[in-house]
């Protein structure tokens, strides 16, 4: 079983290596339909497909037996772990090993399904892109890294995958690097997450040194003092906030939409951002034992879900709407974790992974068709793209939490968990209120995006040339089949995942949520109905500006962190040139200056030298006489 897990992780890695190194060697045929090297397509899809098949096999194996506990444990009760070797570091050793648990099997399935979908989808999306081989290789590398995070049995090995995901995210966001803006977004994404990861690493240190092992099973089994657990979980939270785009480290995610749409779907909606939630769930006993950490998480989630939802309401860029919605939905998962229900969080993570990936892929199809990300350039696409319309409607319904879509069940589970949360009262109240308000705002922004994209007058003007940095314009009516297939397949779990009913449906709470969501949707519909060409976001009134700019947080960060650092850097260079090196050069100059005095005597007159000699001899003689 552990060998299978290792193969699942390694296959995409080998695919990435092969795709990077071999897909162009010796020319090779170019696929006539996709306009990219055929070999690169094979390198992209086959390993991921292999991983997917093996994951299915692994799931079948893991499903044997009986288990209790969270729903993933009852689904996949069989556990396994194994280690390849132990690296002696001089302190706590690193065990290079994997561990298969119910949770990792569940998330592993999500990852390979989404990854496979994205690989297939990308073949059509990146039609004729000369950089397709490296692009698909990075996706494979990302898949491998994410799977390593999921299956890792050791925190430091997990950290390796964790960081490599960040790198792939950087490389993929910067895929269209001709535009400096994309490049900047990529750098920002990497740096913000890296900042969190430093905290994450220190959290790993704290846990590992306290438990004398970096193995997750050992850490969970160890009896750690509460202070250590609280410190460690708070530090881990920094990394979680970075990767899962939680307040205050969420600012990179909206900018990350500069990458190609499949990347937004894969990394920045379904998998990488889920890694943070996953790791909290993986180490959940620790978080349960650390109430202060969960309070902090609750406040961060409360701020994040509402703020991001409001920001989503005021965006014009369709992908940015989805990005802010991702932050908001991730905050729901964080809220469930803070409330003490990892089941609700993982349930929402799974459904969200499905419906958000679906939404992004649909958005990609729309953008592909329109040639612009802006909703003000869209409208009336219902007739032109019927399949996309249907699937995206399913996605939005799930996002709003409308039955029977999956989101209804998972969101209800989260809110029910928050209602009965075991937190300090103030945090619980804030979280619950925020969660309810956010349901309404979510309904509003989802309705707005849906209406602005598919209804109203048609505004599409097909652009003759592809704009660099956006998608390639496609002049057909509907997206190519390689893009439609993944959309269609993803629509099924987005619709049906809720019926797995892993968590009891709380009918009363569900009814309240539904009413609030419909209320939000209704208000937007009313505004839109009155003037279909105008943006319903005008209902925000004077708050429109702050919401559209995400409450000026980027500006604040630029002023508080970026500029002082750059200013310090200039200062350091100045100091280095004048003070540190100045001291060095100064000592040299001082020596030369001193020597100038000495050489005053050396004026070239030999008689003066002899006089000096004589004076010296006399001095010595007198000295010898007097002192002797």
């Amino acid at each position, binding site marked *: 079983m552990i060998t299978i897990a290792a193969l699942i992780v390694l296959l995409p890695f080998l695919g990435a290596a092969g795709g990077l190194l071999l897909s162009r060697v010796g020319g090779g045929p170019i696929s006539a339909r996709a306009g990219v090297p055929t070999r690169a397509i094979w390198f992209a899809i086959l390993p991921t497909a292999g991983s997917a098949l093996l994951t299915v096999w692994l799931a079948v194996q893991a499903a044997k037996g009986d288990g209790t506990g969270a729903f993933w444990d009852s689904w996949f009760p069989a556990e396994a772990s194994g280690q390849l070797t132990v690296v002696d570091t001089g302190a706590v050793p690193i065990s290079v090993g994997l561990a298969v648990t119910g949770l990792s099997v569940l998330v592993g399935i999500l990852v390979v399904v989404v990854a496979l979908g994205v690989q297939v989808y990308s073949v059509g999306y990146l039609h004729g892109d000369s950089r397709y081989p490296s692009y698909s290789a990075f996706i494979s590398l990302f898949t491998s890294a994410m799977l390593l995070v999921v299956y890792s049995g050791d925190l430091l090995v997990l950290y390796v995958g964790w960081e490599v995901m960040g790198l792939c995210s950087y490389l993929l966001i910067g895929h269209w690097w001709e535009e400096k803006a994309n490049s900047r977004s990529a750098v920002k994404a990497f740096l913000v997450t890296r900042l969190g990861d430093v905290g994450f690493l220190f959290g790993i240190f704290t846990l590992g040194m306290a438990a004398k092992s970096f193995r997750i099973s050992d850490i969970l089994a160890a009896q750690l003092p509460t202070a250590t657990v609280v410190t460690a979980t708070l530090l881990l939270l920094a990394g979680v906030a970075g990767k899962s785009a939680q307040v205050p480290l969420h600012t990179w995610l909206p900018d990350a939409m500069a990458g190609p749409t499949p990347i937004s779907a894969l990394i920045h909606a379904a998998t990488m951002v889920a890694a943070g939630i996953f790791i909290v769930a993986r180490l959940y006993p620790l978080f349960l034992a650390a109430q202060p950490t969960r309070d902090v998480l609750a406040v961060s989630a409360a701020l994040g879900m509402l703020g991001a939802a409001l920001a989503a309401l005021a965006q014009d860029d369709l992908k940015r709407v989805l990005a802010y919605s991702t932050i908001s939905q991730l905050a729901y998962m964080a809220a469930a974790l803070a409330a003490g229900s990892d089941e609700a969080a993982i349930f929402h993570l799974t459904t969200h992974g499905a419906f958000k990936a679906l939404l992004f892929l649909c958005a990609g199809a729309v953008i592909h068709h329109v040639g612009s990300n802006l909703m003000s350039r869209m409208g009336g696409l219902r007739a032109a793209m019927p399949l996309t319309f249907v699937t995206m409607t399913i996605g939005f319904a799930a996002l709003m939490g409308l039955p029977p879509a999956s989101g209804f069940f998972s969101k209800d589970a989260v809110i029910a968990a928050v209602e009965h949360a075991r937190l300090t009262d103030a945090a619980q109240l804030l979280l619950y209120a925020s969660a309810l308000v956010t349901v309404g705002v979510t309904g509003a922004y989802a309705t707005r995006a849906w209406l602005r994209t598919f209804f109203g007058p048609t505004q599409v003007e097909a652009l003759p040339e592809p704009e660099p940095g956006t998608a390639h314009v496609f002049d057909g009516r509907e997206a190519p089949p390689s893009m439609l297939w993944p959309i269609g397949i993803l629509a099924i779990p987005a619709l049906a995942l809720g019926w797995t009913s892993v968590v009891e449906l709380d009918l009363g709470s569900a009814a309240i949520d539904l009413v609030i969501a419909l209320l939000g949707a209704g208000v937007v519909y009313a505004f839109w109905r009155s003037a279909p060409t105008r943006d319903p976001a005008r209902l925000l009134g004077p708050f429109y500006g702050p919401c559209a700019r995400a409450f000026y947080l980027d500006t604040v960060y630029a002023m508080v962190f970026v500029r002082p650092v750059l200013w310090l850097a200039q200062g350091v260079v100045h100091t280095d040139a004048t003070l540190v090196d100045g001291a060095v050069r100064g000592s040299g100059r001082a020596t030369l200056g001193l020597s100038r005095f000495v*050489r005053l005597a*050396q*004026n*070239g*007159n*030999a*008689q003066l030298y*002899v006089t000096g000699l*004589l004076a010296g001899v006399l001095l010595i003689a007198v000295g010898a006489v007097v002192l002797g």
Partner: protein
Amino acid sequence: MHVVYPAVISALLFSVGVYGVLARRNAILVLMSVELMLNAVNLNLVAFDVWLRDQLHGGQVLTLFVIVIAAAEVGLGLAIVLAVFRTRRTVDVDRLRDLAEPDFPQPSPNGQAKVRESS
């Protein structure tokens, strides 16, 4: 004869020589002053040789050495002075200052001020 007479005379001779070396500007006169100092030494050597009744007459032997060396030295010195005079048209030691540190502009025989850049 008491040894103090030749000793005083040689001291006087030596002092004259020192003065000459330190104060004369003409290189030939400086050389001659050096000779004076050497001969003062010679006088001392001979006088003390007699005074001490040295069996081996080391003083006299050394005197012969000094005379020979002085002759060689004068020959070499005069040759140098001659060579200097040929190139510089002067034997004024005050103006032969090529050994000076380069910071000071030195007058050279052909009237140009040489300033070498400081290293």
